[in-house]
């Protein structure tokens, strides 16, 4: 479906993308994972024909994003990072507007969005500016879907949205995928990455790896331990001071640690107790995507 080859792009001398290549298959849910400023938005804008890459080519269904942009634009649904809604228009009006602009009507394609729209239909007379983050996001998705595109591109659709709405939103994406729509989505949240068919990890404009979420974590070369303690700040400091510890990364309510030589430090808990930590615990865990990402990132920096 999407074929990107050696895309490079820079703004005022700063590299935004460097030889990015990736392929997305038809009706695949493909995730672009990376921190802010990694180049996700730039890549999406190239895919959606909004930017011309300096180097490289992107084609969608064999149509080139530069030469055939007119034809392509009819077939892409795009949801930019800031939900592009008219704040002073009501839910209904926003939807109707995007439908006419894309040359269709709400009625004609209602079946495509009925599932999602039913969540916000009770508020259809409300202005978009007055909606909660979750509802804005659903409306924006409806607007991106209303012209029945084959590909939808979603730029951080769950940023700034509450946890319940995030889960709901991903369920919707899965459903859309089931209907044969190809989805390209970016997110800074690692827990969402596992929901994709395949993910690409991107950092400073470069792709660090592309694989199924399971294979990415499966390839993680080290054993990972989750260390728990009450005073997390002090815990991190003390762990960093320990010579046997290779990497320390705070992660939710625990700290993820790898050891140099991949060998568990038997004396670690004792050391922590000496440092005044009450009842510290260490547990061997399955690596998550974030662990992989952090490892790849530190490798990048050392190279």
């Amino acid at each position: 479906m999407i074929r990107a080859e050696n895309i490079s792009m820079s703004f005022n001398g700063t590299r935004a993308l460097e030889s990015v290549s990736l392929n997305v298959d038809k009706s695949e849910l493909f995730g672009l994972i990376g921190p802010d400023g990694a180049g996700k938005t730039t890549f999406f804008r190239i895919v959606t024909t909004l930017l011309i890459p300096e180097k490289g080519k992107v084609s969608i269904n064999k149509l080139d994003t530069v030469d055939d942009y007119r034809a392509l634009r009819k077939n892409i649904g795009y949801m930019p990072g800031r939900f592009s809604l008219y704040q002073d228009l009501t839910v209904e009006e926003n939807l109707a507007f995007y439908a006419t602009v894309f040359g269709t009507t709400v009625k004609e394609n209602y079946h495509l969005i009925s599932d999602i729209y039913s969540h916000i239909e009770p508020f259809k007379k409300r202005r978009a500016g007055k909606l909660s983050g979750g509802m804005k996001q659903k409306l924006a998705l409806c607007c991106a879907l209303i012209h029945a595109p084959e590909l939808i591109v979603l730029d951080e659709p769950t940023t700034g949205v509450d946890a319940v709405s995030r889960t709901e939103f991903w369920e919707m994406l899965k459903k859309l995928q089931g209907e044969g729509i190809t989805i390209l989505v970016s997110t800074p949240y690692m827990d969402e990455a596992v929901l994709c068919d395949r993910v690409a990890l991107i950092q400073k404009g470069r792709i660090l790896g592309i694989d199924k979420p399971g294979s990415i974590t499966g390839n993680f070369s080290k054993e990972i331990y989750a260390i728990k303690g009450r005073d997390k700040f002090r815990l991190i400091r003390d762990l960093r001071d320990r010579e046997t510890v290779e990497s320390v990364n705070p992660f939710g309510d625990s700290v993820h640690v790898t050891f140099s030589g991949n060998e568990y430090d038997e004396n670690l808990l004792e050391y922590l107790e000496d440092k005044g930590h009450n009842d510290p615990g260490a547990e061997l865990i399955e690596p998550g995507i974030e662990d992989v990402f952090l490892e790849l990132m530190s490798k990048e920096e050392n190279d």
Partner: protein
Amino acid sequence: MKRLAGFIKKEFIHIFRDFRTLIFLFGIPAAQILIFGFAVRTDIKNAGIAVLDKAKDEISTGLISKLESSDFFILKENLMTDTRIDEVFKTGEIKAVFIFESEFGKTLINEGSANIQIIADGSEPNVANLVTSYSRAIISDYTMELNRAEETSAIPVEPEVKMYYNPNLESQYMFVPGVIAIVLLLTCAMMTSVTITREEEFGTMEVLLVSPLKPIQVILGKVMPYFLLSLIDVVFILFLSWLVFDIPIRGSLILLMLESMLYIMMGLSLGIMISTLARTMQQAMFTSLLGLMLPAIVLSGFVFPVESMPEIYNWLSSIIPPRWFVTIVKNIMVKGTDFSFVIKETFILLAMTLLFITLSTTRFKKRLE
């Protein structure tokens, strides 16, 4: 076509839902007409005066009643002593004090001349100038009458001045064209530039660009509602100035409307151009306000006459569109001239419009930068 119609409909919803836009469209023109019409005046009416009459004879009281009976002055106080003069000026209500010397009438009859001292409030130079020249005219009128009554042999030459087009020299005749020029520039250029940059700021432009809408449709959709509303604005201003100030349109109304359409198109294309340069709504707003409003008011010749400006300002003024439009409106409205007298100005505006359209369409992006 359907797409464009949908776009225009959306644009109208924006306008009618935003209280501020409506204020800009109709509140500001009304306020400007009334402010410029009533408050900023270059003619005077009912200026307060005081009199210190040391003579109190037939001739001095006659002159005082003459001053009083003109529309220009209202006699607020009869002063008794010189010391009061200072005090009454401080109240601010008195613009001038007339002092008649004692034995005023007698001296005038015996010696053929007598003295009146006029003290005017110099803190308002314009008013002071007007007050003194008006009172001079009234006094010389009065002495003329006296001479006639006594049938003296000297026949003074009396110039009869007539102001063509605007017999009473009403300042509103000057302000209405100016207000039209400024209000249209404000609505057209500022509103369109702000509404286009708003799409960019809220991220909606990204989706519009991805949509099959052509750039020309986006521009037309943005501009058409303002074109219509600006035309309504012109009618509104003309109607208001006729209603409140009784200002007639002497020339062809159709010609005036056609010229307004041209000027509106100029403003709209200028607005699009600003939007391609500005990145945020605020930038667009400030560029339009400072970059357009100020020169439009100062240099268009509606407050300060272009002819009396220094060379460089005169030259600067000729590159700002309102100057030419003010001339056109003045010619059509006040002088009642036909098209042949405004051909030059029309073509200058036309050229400016084409220039802005070319610049803005070449700069308007099909893509993001």
